[in-house]
C-alpha cells in the first residue's frame, strides 16, 4: 500500500505510536517520495498528527509517548540505537498548527534560531541564510525593512510563514506541516498552499490536514487515516476520484468525520 514510482526519501515500516499502553497509530507503512507533497487526511483523533510527530521523533517527547517499528530517512532508521534525536530534528523540519514565533526574538533572530544551534556561524552567512529562508517562505518582501522588530508584530498568517522560514533556514531535507493553515484566514491559507508547490522542488513535504480541498489542491499523494490505521493511500487525483475502500469514499463524500 504505497506509491512506489519515485525513490523514497522517507519511509515508515510498521510504525506504531503509543501513549502508555494506548495505541494511537497502528502499524503504518508508508513511503514519501523525494520532492513530493503527501497529504495525510482523516477525521479528528485518527492519529494523523501523532503519526507526523513520529517522523521527527517528537512523539517520544509527549507524556508517556513511545514508538515501535521504524522510520527510514534515506534508508537509515532514525530510531536506530546510535541515532541522536536532536540531529534527526535538524534534518526534518516541522511547522505546527498554531504559529509559534519566539516572542522574545526579532524577526531576524527567529529565522536564525535554528542556524546557530550547530555552532557559531559568520554573521554574513547568517544574514544570507535568513534572507534565503524568508524569500522561500514568501515573506521577504513584507518584512525586509523591519527585520529587527518583534515577531509578534506580524499578522497570524505572516507569523506562520515566519515559522516556515525558521524551519527552512537550516535547510532540512524533509518538511512536516501539521495543519499549517488551521488557524489562518483564507488569504493566509492560500499563501501557504502556494508555498507548498514552490517548496517541493527542494524539499519532501508531508502535510497533515483535515481540510479535504486543501489536500486535493496541494498534494501529489494522499493517505487516509481512520481510527489509528492507514486505510488507503494513492495518487491524490485517483484517491479523490475513485477511492478503493468504502471508508475512504464515505469520508470523502462527507458521510462521517
Amino acid at each position: 500500500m504505497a506509491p512506489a514510482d519515485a525513490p523514497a526519501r522517507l519511509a515508515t515500516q510498521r510504525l506504531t505510536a503509543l501513549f502508555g499502553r494506548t495505541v494511537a497509530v497502528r502499524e503504518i507503512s508508508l513511503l514519501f517520495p523525494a520532492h513530493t507533497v503527501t497529504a495525510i487526511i482523516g477525521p479528528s483523533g485518527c492519529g494523523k498528527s501523532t503519526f507526523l510527530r513520529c517522523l521527527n521523533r517528537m512523539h517520544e517527547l509527549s507524556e508517556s509517548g513511545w514508538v515501535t517499528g521504524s522510520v527510514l530517512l534515506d534508508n537509515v532508521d532514525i530510531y536506530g540505537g546510535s541515532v541522536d534525536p536532536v540531529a534527526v530534528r535538524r534534518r526534518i523540519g516541522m511547522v505546527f498548527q498554531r504559529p509559534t514565533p519566539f516572542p522574545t526574538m526579532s524577526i531576524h533572530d527567529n529565522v536564525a534560531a535554528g542556524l546557530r544551534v550547530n555552532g557559531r556561524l559568520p554573521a554574513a552567512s547568517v544574514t544570507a541564510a535568513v534572507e534565503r529562508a524568508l524569500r522561500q517562505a514568501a515573506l521577504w518582501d513584507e518584512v525586509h525593512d523591519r527585520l529587527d522588530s518583534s515577531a509578534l508584530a506580524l499578522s497570524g498568517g505572516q507569523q506562520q510563514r515566519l515559522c516556515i522560514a525558521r524551519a527552512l533556514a537550516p535547510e532540512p531535507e524533509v518538511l512536516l506541516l501539521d495543519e499549517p493553515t488551521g488557524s489562518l484566514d483564507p488569504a493566509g491559507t492560500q499563501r501557504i498552499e502556494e508555498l507548498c508547490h514552490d517548496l517541493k522542488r527542494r524539499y519532501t513535504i508531508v502535510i497533515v490536514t483535515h481540510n479535504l480541498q486543501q489536500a486535493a489542491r496541494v498534494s501529489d499523494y494522499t493517505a487516509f487515516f481512520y481510527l489509528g490505521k492507514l486505510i488507503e493511500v494513492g495518487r491524490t487525483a485517483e484517491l479523490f476520484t475513485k477511492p478503493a475502500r468504502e471508508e475512504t469514499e464515505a469520508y470523502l463524500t462527507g458521510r462521517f468525520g
Partner: protein
Amino acid sequence: MTARAIRRRAVSGVMTGLVALLCAAAVLPLVLIFADLLHKGATAIDWNFFVRTPVPIGQTGGGVAHAIVGSAIIVGTACLIGLPIGIGAGIYLAEYGTGRLGWVVRFVADVLNGTPSIVIGILAWTWFVRPVGHFSALAGSIALATLMVPMVARTTEEMVRLVPHSLREAALALGYPRWRTSLRVVVRTAVAGIVTGALVAVARIAGETAPLLFTALGNLNFSVSLGHPMQALPLQIFTYATGPFDEWHRLAWASALVLMALVLLLSTVARWATRQRYGTR
C-alpha cells in the same frame, strides 16, 4: 415589577455594597499607614536626612545615611547569594522537577517559605555569628538570602511553567537540545515574570527586622564592611522607635516613610514589568 424581581435587586444591591465595603477595608490599612507616615515622617526628611549620620543626643539635624547605605549593602549581598540559587532552583523545578527530587525540593521550599523569619535569624546567629565571635552584615545577608531563596524559587517555577508548551516544542523541533531549549527559549520568554518575582522578594526582605537583630545587629556609625555590624533601615526604625528621645522618634517615622516608599517603588516596578509581559504590544 414582581416581588421576586424586587427582592433580587435588593439582594444584589446589598451584596455589591458588602463587597465594596470589604474591598475598602482591605485597602484602608495601606492608605492609613501611608497617610500617617507622611504626616509624621515627612517633616523630618530633608537633605541631611539622606547624607548625614546621627548626631549626638541633644542635637538635632542628624540623618540615617548609614542605615540607607547599610540596607543597600545587606540587601544587595543577599540578592547576590539568594537570587542565583532561587532562580536556578525554580528553573530546575519547572523544567526537570517531575521526579522524586523535585517533589522534595518543592516541599522543602514551601516549608522554608512558611518559617518565621526570627527562626531564620536565630539559626543564622548560631551558624555565622557565634563561631566567628562577632556580629556581621554578611550573616544578615545570608539570613535574608535564606528567606529569599524559597520565594524566588517558587515564583520562578510558576513563571517558567506559564510559558506555552508549543514554544518548547517549536524549539525542540528545530533541533535544539533540551538545555538550550530551556535557556534560550523558555527561560528567556519567562524573564519578565522572573524579574517581577525577584523584585517582590527584594521588597519583602528589605523590610525584615528579626533576622537582622541577631546578625547585622545595627551600628550607630557609618560602616561598609561586610565583616562588621552594619545599620539597616528596619533596625534603625526599631532602635529609634523604642528609644526615649523625641528626636529619635521623629527620625524613626522618617525612616519608616523612606522604607515604605522604597518597598512601594519596588512593587510598582514589579507591576510595570508584569504589564509589559502580558501586554498586547
